[in-house]
């Protein structure tokens, strides 16, 4: 059995692909439309996956913990 590929194919409109090709042809850094789309999607997905979390620490707690973590070498 062939090893499972790390990549899959998704469809985007051809017009969008053309626009991205034009965009990245002028810039360095992105080798392909796939690279660009992966980059953008990663950012967007990661943004949506991050939920607002209520802060359990008071500002005094934070100052105290930061001081402790700093002294411990973590910060």
């Amino acid at each position: 059995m062939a090893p499972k590929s790390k990549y899959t194919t998704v469809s985007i409109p051809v017009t969008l692909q053309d626009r991205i090709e034009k965009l990245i042809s002028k810039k360095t850094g992105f080798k392909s439309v796939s690279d660009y789309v992966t980059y953008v999607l990663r950012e967007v997905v990661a943004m949506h996956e991050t939920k607002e979390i209520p802060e359990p620490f008071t500002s005094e707690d934070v100052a105290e913990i930061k001081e402790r973590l700093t002294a411990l070498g973590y910060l």
Partner: protein
Amino acid sequence: MQHKGTKVAIIGLDSVPPELMFSKLLGKLPNIKHMYDKGLHGNLTTCHPPITVPAWMVMMTGKNPGKLGIYGFRHRKGHSYKDGYIVNSAHVNEETVWQALARQGRKSIILAIPPGYPPKQIENCNIVSCFITPSMEKSFTYPAELKDEVLNVANGKYIFDVTFRTENRDAIKKELFEMTEKRFDVAEYLAENKPWDFFIMHEIGFDRLHHAFWKFFDPTHPKYVKGNQYEHLDEEYYKMVDGRIGRLVNVFGEDCVTFILSDHGSKGMRGAFCVNQWLEREGYLAFKSPVADVTDIDKADVDWTKTKAWGWGGYYARIFFNVKGREPNGIIDPNNLSLEKKKLVEKIKNTILDDDGRKMNNLVFEPDELYGIAKGDKPDLMVYFGDLDWRSAGTIGHNSLYLSENDTGPDDSVHSMNGIFLMYDPHRNLRGKELKGLKIEDIAPTLLQMYGINLPDNGIDGRVIREVAGL
């Protein structure tokens, strides 16, 4: 090995390296030696970064830090220059072993696993929060009534962590031993008095012992002095814990499989490398006025209109780029970001020398590449100076790029990639076999297998350790 009555206990010892537990000190630790000789052991390769938070959650979810979105104790808040937050239990969204067990009605005891504050409300669990707990006055247990029992066992003073902002090492030593004894008192109490199928505890004391005393007991440390008063403190502390482990394993009983695990190793610190001063020298970071005194980067007067990148201190360096449209005063065109990254990575890898003029063996990771997916408030680059022999100093205003001490407190050790793995089943003589290639992500799937729980198809990175699960 999947049966209804499966009982597993994990004794988590923060930062214990195989070089101490399995080599230098093993002969002095009768209980651990017995478990070692009858059980399985090996080096447990930890995650990147090899830091307590996220490592214990990687171990207990089987997922890498990118999937957890946790890269250390503290994160930037979005793309702010100054705002940050301390990671707490609510930031862990992936399922832990005890949550998977709880769904099946199995009961767990969770003592001090970081990040464990505030304690999550999970049915079928008795939880005591971790060393990040601000104080004893807080609600630090689930259920809340458990707090009174913990305080009672600890004679009214349960110690989450030692005070570490002093050069008074006698005081640190005293508190360290007291803290660990109390943790084991509570562990014994919970294991004896609460129902459980799964027990896990974490002891932070080893990490504190290593950071505060490594140079005293490691003859290879540059600052080691023969005959110093703490020369055998490692042995003294490890022996004390060995005695407590012997007692605790007795409480666990004959039908319990016990693991002793650590989340990363430790090694002597070579020094601290001033990442921001280096970035300034290389033209990446600019200040509005010359920095005369030692100053935290968060408090420095950075000229963001001329700054391309800056870094954070810690056991590894986090580097952030100042990107237009992302940071408040970003200057790097997003389309040039990958080129800028590439250039800086090359510089860090190839041009940084140590204080002896030798090339530093620096490792640089990009979170997206390292993890496949990197959620949350990730840095742009993660850097290990000298394979972690050098910690990263985030402060500026030093007269050298190299500091022989930690810039933020007494510190003699840094973290290393190998932790310990030891498994002991009183009913199986496994003859001290060594297992190779163990990874911290393997623990959660192995535990789930032991309880007969099918591995969820939700991106667990680890694999089942077949020898452990009895397959």
